[in-house]
């Protein structure tokens, strides 16, 4: 399959300001060398704990953060920023759905205005064309046409997220970036929105970068899953392969810590000790080996932690402490 979106050695660093002059005193390495490829029509799931840099990555892909190093290629062409004339064209091709629909919709605009705005910004269509596009979008996400005259507060959380999805689809983007689109929703509503996303993906042939912290949700929507830990991707594999055969110690713990709705698990906690180290002052070696105080941690200091392909399509960050190389 053809690669549509390519993220290459992307780094996003933020200065940490301090002292009385608010000068930069340290750097927060939110995303620190991430390379990923998404094929046309594919959905890549990105999972990780809070603070691992997954949202920063998403925001950089849609141009809300400026990369410090590395590049993002869309269809083989480098995305030269999101400002100016060229930037406007780029923005049309990549759209985003945000986590909290209550905060990402303008409360003073009607749903119709919210959905129409992208068309106005890009000066597309006449008034009647725009109106019919709004109706089409509302139908697409399963809302009634009269919703266009109502305000976001009149809708429930699930319906608001449908509006957020419709807005992202207004311009027929090629790539959709979804940042935790269902995390804020209740269980019964969540599965409705997941079904809608699965349906839209198949019908419109969308290419998606789907970000979530919940592996069970990601599994349902993704073809491949990438696991991030402290600014780096540590494992990438086809969805089912990753769950059946996780190779990195962190992926394994992440899967095991999900509480299963099975009373046989009563009182059994799979506990991973420690916490995610700070991205401002990361440990010199493998950050996961450091967290679990692995005996082999010292061996990882100084070794280049690169993603290597261990079986077709299954890449892991090979380090001595988390996924020791098999002896031949």
């Amino acid at each position, binding site marked *: 399959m053809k690669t549509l979106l390519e993220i290459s050695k992307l780094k996003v660093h933020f200065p940490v300001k301090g002292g009385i002059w608010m000068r930069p005193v340290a750097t927060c390495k939110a995303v620190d060398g991430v390379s990923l490829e998404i094929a046309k029509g594919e959905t890549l799931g990105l999972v990780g704990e809070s603070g691992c840099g997954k949202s920063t990555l998403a925001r950089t892909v849609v141009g809300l953060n400026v990369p410090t190093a590395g590049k993002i290629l869309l269809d083989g062409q480098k995305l030269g920023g999101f400002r100016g004339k060229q930037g406007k064209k780029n923005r049309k091709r990549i759209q985003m759905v945000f986590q909290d629909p209550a905060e990402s919709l303008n409360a003073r605009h009607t749903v119709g205005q919210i959905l129409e705005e992208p068309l106005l910004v890009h000066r597309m269509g006449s008034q009647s064309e725009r109106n019919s596009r709004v109706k089409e979008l509302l139908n697409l996400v399963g809302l009634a046409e009269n919703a266009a005259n109502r305000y976001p507060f009149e809708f429930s959380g699930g319906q608001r997220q449908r509006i957020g999805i419709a807005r992202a689809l207004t311009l027929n983007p090629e790539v959709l970036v979804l940042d935790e689109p269902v995390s804020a929703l209740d269980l019964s509503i969540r599965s409705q929105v997941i079904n809608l996303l699965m349906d839209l993906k198949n019908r419109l042939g969308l290419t998606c970068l789907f970000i979530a912290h919940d592996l*069970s949700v990601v599994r349902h929507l993704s073809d491949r899953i990438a696991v991030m830990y402290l600014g780096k991707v540590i494992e990438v594999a086809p969805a089912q392969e990753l769950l059946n055969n996780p190779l990195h110690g962190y992926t394994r713990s992440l899967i095991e*810590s999900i*509480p*299963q*709705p*099975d*009373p046989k698990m009563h009182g059994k906690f799979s506990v991973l000790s420690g916490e995610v180290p700070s991205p401002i002052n990361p440990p010199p070696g493998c950050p996961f080996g450091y967290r679990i105080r692995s005996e082999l941690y010292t061996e990882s200091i100084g070794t280049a932690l690169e993603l290597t392909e261990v079986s077709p399509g299954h890449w892991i960050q090979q380090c001595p402490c988390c996924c020791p190389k098999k002896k031949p």
Partner: protein
Amino acid sequence: MNLLEVRGLKVAFENEKGEDLVVVDGVDLSLESGQTLGLVGESGCGKSVSALSLLRLLPHPAGKILNGSILWKNVDLLSMSSDQIRSIRGKEIGMIFQEPMNALNPSHTIGRQVDEVFLTHREMKQAEAREHTLKMLQKVGIPEPNVRANDYPHQLSGGMRQRIVIAMALACEPDLIIADEPTTALDVTIQAQVLQLMSELQEQSAASLLLITHDLGVVAQTCDEVAVMYGGRIVERAPVSKLFQSPKHAYTRGLLASIPSLTDPVQAKLPVIQGMVPALADLNTGCRFAPRSTHHHEQEWLEVRPPFVEVEENHWVEACPACAVLNKKDLS
């Protein structure tokens, strides 16, 4: 004797028009000592409001308890004076809140906040209180307690902050701990740590736990019994294994089915519960789930509240013909 016995609790909030919106509509709960009861439901179902009412912490003056009784060790909490209830809060009943950053005072060190529990309820001297605080911090797994005690909440991670809240709730060895979504704001790996800590400490002190959550996975791991809430009422109550193996109410079955599984093959569509949670003002008097149930319902069922019946030993369900799996004798 039950440690806590709630009967027919009815709580309402006044809206800006001065009308009462009933949020909790006739809830019965009972908790034996040492037991863990899970209270499950979606947002707006009244689970947090029920918990706050137990400690009489409802926002004043909007929230009010219209009806019912809350018997704590056979004394009605609703008839107590504010002074009396204050001596129970934090001493006999501890509370753990969802968002640790909001539960802690940002301008006091964590040591001082834990000290306060001992100073108020145990009437200790400062030095003695600090000694107990350090022991407590050690117990909840804070590394280097004597250094950390001087930290402010913002200097700690989310998981550590929740440990402090737990330390405060458990400081006086309460008989009952009410935990309102204690791990919802935390990551899965940290959630597992906090749940394990809570169940260890609970076992040590033989306290009861009322765990409020929306995550059925957490319930399966930690609770002995579960009560499922919908629209301000408990629709089903059963021991954990029974509820997961043979759920009787359509809502419980819908909830269990809509959890995306980690192991089953990916389906084209996840099972869903049709429709959405009705607004508080639109709630009907009869069975509240019937309009969303896939089975046919008659108008009468929407008007008359179905009885809460015991269909199997310890397994209670709201007996609406459209929503519940019932034997013939249960209906009579």
